[in-house]
């Protein structure tokens, strides 16, 4: 497979995953807007959402104060925001278009139709658009595309590069969301364990569509330890750092097998998996959640860099 083709497939998947993350954050931000103000009138949820995407500064420059309407526009439609649903979908679709011969017609169809529908949204008068409809649509489009990939793509190297895009992006997104919770959602450490803290952990769970999973898995009250366990170490939860890393390892090993060639990318990924597979929540808190997450993101980036060097540059290491 052409390195460039692999690269387009990989980035297509990364953008698709990112579009979903943004849609989820929008959904959560909007839901929080409906809740009564607890914790002494402090309301920075939208800022936290922007922060999570690394887009707070660009937003302020362009729109000023965060109000819901502006944030919706910024996060959904604004093509100057690289993390907006629109930007991500357009980038995903452009990557797909370039390599459509590497995609089944169902996958191309799902991506292309979603893109056309989004343009339809864009042409619709804003007062007729409900935020929930938009975010629901984005998540549904994401599921449709993932379903088409899972149901129709050959399990060949192309499929593995798509899978890698999803798993590497997903690991990064989960780590970022967790990190944001710790340093942005909480205005000061004195809030830890407070009612505000509780609500915000619940918010985080919702942003991952993990609320029900949490309730079924852990029972009882929401604590930082249980949430960290779910989002970092739980093998059953598909967005946990461990699951995402396991996916990266699986895809990389399948590639090595297919090419009959061991790769550095594969050993880097297995190294990270080995480290976190043996961890306990206590280990994570001993290191410090923030420190741990930074370290994880760096290691995840190393996998991405090794994938780039091994497969996407066209000149093997």
């Amino acid at each position, binding site marked *: 497979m052409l390195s460039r083709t692999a690269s387009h497939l990989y980035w297509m998947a990364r953008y698709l995953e990112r579009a979903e993350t943004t849609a989820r954050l929008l959904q959560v931000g909007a839901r929080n807007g409906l809740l009564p103000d607890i914790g002494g009138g402090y309301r920075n949820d939208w800022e936290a959402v922007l922060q999570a995407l690394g887009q707070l500064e660009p937003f302020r420059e362009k729109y000023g104060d965060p109000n819901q309407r502006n944030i919706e526009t910024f996060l959904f439609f604004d093509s100057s925001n690289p993390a907006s649903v629109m930007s991500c979908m357009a980038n995903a679709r452009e990557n797909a*278009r370039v390599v459509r011969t590497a995609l089944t017609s169902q996958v191309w169809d799902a991506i292309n139709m979603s893109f056309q529908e989004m343009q339809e949204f864009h042409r619709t008068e804003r007062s007729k658009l409900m935020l929930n409809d938009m975010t629901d649509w984005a998540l549904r489009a994401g599921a449709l595309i993932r379903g088409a990939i899972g149901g129709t793509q050959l399990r060949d190297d192309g499929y593995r590069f798509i899978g890698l895009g999803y798993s590497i992006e997903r690991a990064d997104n989960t780590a970022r969301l967790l990190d944001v919770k710790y340093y942005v959602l909480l205005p000061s450490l004195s809030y830890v364990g407070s009612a505000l803290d509780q609500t915000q952990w619940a918010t985080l769970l919702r942003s991952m569509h993990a609320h029900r999973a949490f309730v079924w898995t852990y029972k009882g009250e929401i604590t930082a330890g249980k949430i960290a366990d779910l989002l970092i170490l739980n093998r059953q939860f598909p967005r946990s750092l461990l699951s995402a890393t396991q996916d990266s390892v699986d895809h990389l090993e399948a590639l090595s097998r297919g090419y009959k060639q061991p790769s550095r990318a594969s050993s880097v990924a297995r190294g990270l998996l080995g480290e976190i597979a043996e961890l306990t929540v206590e280990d994570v808190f001993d290191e410090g959640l923030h420190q741990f997450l930074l370290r994880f993101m760096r290691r995840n980036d190393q996998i991405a860099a090794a994938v780039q060097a091994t497969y996407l540059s066209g000149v093997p290491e």
Partner: protein
Amino acid sequence: MAQTFNEMVDQGHVREAYRNLEKWQNDMPGDLRAMKQSEAEALFRRVGITFAVYGEGGDPERLIPFDMFPRVFTASEWRKLDRGIRQRAAALNAFLADVYDQREIIRAGRIPEHLVTKNEAFEKAVVGFRPPRNVWSHIVGIDLVRTGPDQFYVLEDNCRTPSGVSYMLQNREIMMRMFPNLFVENRIAPVDGYADTLRKTLASVAPQKCDSDPTVVILTPGQFNSAYYEHSFLADLMGVELVEGQDLFVDGDFCWMRTTEGPKKVDVIYRRIDDAFIDPLCFRPDSMLGVPGLMNVYRSGGVTICSAPGAGVADDKAIYTFVPEMIRFYLGEAPILENVPTWQCAKADDCKYVLENLSELVVKEVHGSGGYGMLVGPKADRATIEAFRAKIEERPSNYIAQPTLALSACPTFVEEGVAPRHVDLRPYCLVGEKIELVPGGLTRVALNEGSLVVNSSQGGGVKDTWVLAE
């Protein structure tokens, strides 16, 4: 202007080839037609059959209007076209082989030397070079028009990278999907062997140094090119990689592509980029589209480039007038297809005639394309004609002129129902070990009433083209 020949109705009678279609047309209620039309558009949009127009505002991915009314040739009509096209493709290739080698046709005084060697498309870098099987133009697109039951004229030859073949294939797919009954009632020769033939043709011109199954690729300028869809479509149908310049590199005697498993040798490149962009070391140094060093590998027989760099010298509008001469000179045959009578403004007598008759002639720039830089005398106002006169007087050698042909018209679905619209035809002839041609081509139709300009960048549409089986 002479009487327009109607492809369907001749002297009050529906011609045999169109009999079934007449009933089909009459039986189709207006609402069904509208429904089918929007279904066709949705299909085109859905599979992404678009041509890209960047930099003009609006939707950059446009659909070429598709007309559902097919254009039909009988088997015997096609036999003549088929022979004429093969003959022309052979002569054009013989001409190319000759002008980069012995130049016998020039020495015999049949073609003026300056038209060849001073031609912008003449490539000094390949003089004396002999490509595999001595084929220079592997995909020859011959544009034809019809003026009567038996009158066909060649409008121009395209020896470099003629486009549009994806429409020929997709128009057929869409017609078969929407009107399966038409294909039961009519015996229509299939065109879907095109991709297979193209692949075999390209493989058959692999360089001598290639000692295994040749690796064929299509080289595209990338997704912003207007024909990108076609490039990816053909790569997909042939099962070959669609590469950009950045995917290729030269190492040693060969050209390689970057793959996830490391470098892979490339043997045949069907390039869809212009000569000037093939190799920045040899041609335009500012271009990122090509591959540095590729021309060296080409000249030393490490890779085949299709069509060959320099092939454009045969499809120039000034050279065009000499193609019948080439057929007689190289093949010793009488031309089967006629040229449109052409005046060359470079010649004083011709130029004088052209300037005196501007309002009746079509004047074209020698190097123009895409329907631009053209004067359609009978349709032009006085000011336009005078402006063109000044341009011709300033640089006569830049222009040729032809009589306004009464292009045939084919029934076409329009707002008010069915009405005749002017059409032309581009069949695609493949030249490798053999010369091959699928029965069909791309019919372009001028959708505006009375218009003679069928080019897609100027409001033209496309139709399915049928050749009835024997």
